[in-house]
């Protein structure tokens, strides 16, 4: 069956040369945020990698995650979608509709029982099933059926990972995340609103290459991409450390590209790869465009106080402990960001 071909065979059939293959491996090693010394290990694994079947289920979502995914700028993505993975169900991208589409999904699930990768975007409403259903079947039922024989589940986007915007107070649909419903399967969370396209493909490529899940953090996110805060990797960090802040969006500090902390930047408590992987073919990321980070890859980012309120205001009241740390010097930065993150979480729990 076509899905069981190795990637090495597929590329050879397409006339990809050794140098082409090496280039491919160098690119995806970088894409997976692995050290360059791993290229030869990646090449070895990839030659023998089997093409996995992928089923993508969209629930309460805005299609932003799919938009992001299909705009990954690497050419390997076309090959990733069409050659390296077998995308057997994705209701926005597939040609089939109605019964034919559902039939294709069931066939793929049956043929690849226990081996297919289930991708989910969107949250699942537990209130009225009618809030979001496909072919008259509730999102919850779709998820539970597809999850039963999946090898692993990837929650794409903040909605699938944590409930996201549909779950924002007062959560009218009773939205929950995939991890709230599924407890007996490995789940990889790839949050972000939307997630960075290269991060989505990086996670899929990891599964394709090594046949295993990447190392995950306490929120179920791949450490390779979510191991550091945006603040840790921000090119404006030097201004934070020196206590140079923009106070308004049009003051001298803003024009000079100083730190956006006082304008509500959530980078110190947000784990994501925006500052290095960047967006729009590596052009920039929100802070580089002069806007504070909204913290979209964190749980309940919508309910964490105002986007333009400094973290110190939402977490500590007006005393600005974190800000004082920033002005005091670099050494305190990471520790206080961690403290802020913990305190913010506690404050959040206390307010609920």
């Amino acid at each position, binding site marked *: 069956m076509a899905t069981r071909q190795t990637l090495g065979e597929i590329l050879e059939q397409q006339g990809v*040369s050794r140098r082409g293959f090496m280039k491919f491996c*160098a*690119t995806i090693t970088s894409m997976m945020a692995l050290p360059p*010394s791993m290229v030869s290990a990646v090449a070895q694994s990839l030659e023998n990698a089997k093409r996995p079947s992928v089923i993508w289920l969209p629930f309460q979502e805005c299609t932003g995650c799919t938009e992001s995914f299909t705009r990954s700028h*690497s*050419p390997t993505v076309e090959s990733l979608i069409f050659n390296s993975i077998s995308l057997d169900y994705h209701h926005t991208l597939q040609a089939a509709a109605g019964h034919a589409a559902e039939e294709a999904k069931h066939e793929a699930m049956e043929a690849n029982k226990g081996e297919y990768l289930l991708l989910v975007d969107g949250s699942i409403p537990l209130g009225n099933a009618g809030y979001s259903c496909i072919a008259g079947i509730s999102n919850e039922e779709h998820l539970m059926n597809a999850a039963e024989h999946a090898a692993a589940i990837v929650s794409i986007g903040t909605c699938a990972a944590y409930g996201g915007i549909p779950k924002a107070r007062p959560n009218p649909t009773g939205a929950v995340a995939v991890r709230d419903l599924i407890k007996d399967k490995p789940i990889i969370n790839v949050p972000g609103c939307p997630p960075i396209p290269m991060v989505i493909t990086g996670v899929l490529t990891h599964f394709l290459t090594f046949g295993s899940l990447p190392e995950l953090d306490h929120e179920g996110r791949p450490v390779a991409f979510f191991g550091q805060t945006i603040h840790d990797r921000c*090119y404006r960090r030097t201004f934070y450390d020196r206590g140079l802040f923009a106070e308004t969006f049009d003051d001298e500090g803003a024009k000079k590209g100083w730190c956006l902390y006082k304008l509500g930047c959530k980078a110190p408590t947000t784990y994501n790869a925006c500052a290095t*992987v960047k967006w729009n073919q590596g052009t920039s990321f929100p802070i580089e465009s002069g806007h504070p980070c909204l913290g979209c890859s964190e749980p309940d980012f919508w309910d964490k106080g105002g986007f333009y309120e400094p973290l110190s205001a939402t977490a500590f009241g007006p005393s600005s402990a974190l800000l004082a740390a920033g002005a005091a010097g670099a050494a305190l930065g990471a520790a206080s960001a961690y403290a802020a993150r913990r305190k913010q979480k506690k404050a959040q729990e206390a307010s609920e």
Partner: protein
Amino acid sequence: MSGIDDIGVRIEPPVPDDHSYGNVQPILHEVLHALDRLLETGEPTTIDLRSMPFGPGEEERLEEALGTGEITVTLDAMGESRIVECAFPGVWLVTHYNSHEEIMARMIEVTEVPEIVRAERRELRSGAERLRQDLTGRH
């Protein structure tokens, strides 16, 4: 009612683009250490530039600092790749493009010759075989 012309407009000079965000210097040091290692032990190093938090204009400044040496190799496989020896022998700036000329990966390789440039034995063998067949066909 006042018109749009009544709104004052002030054009300000842009922020000087030579501002340092502090990334160029450490990478140059890393390259130097890699060169020392290559000299002492023969061990090559690759620095993935995608993992660097470059500020605006910093990558260009890094390129300037590395300069351009004598050799530029263009590779045509799954889109173009440019392999440029920098002003410091053994330091190569490797940029992989896709078929739409977008950058897929970018790295500094500190090595005698980047691995991707070398012809491998398997390729040598199949090339020799093709040439042999060509020559046999001609006679």
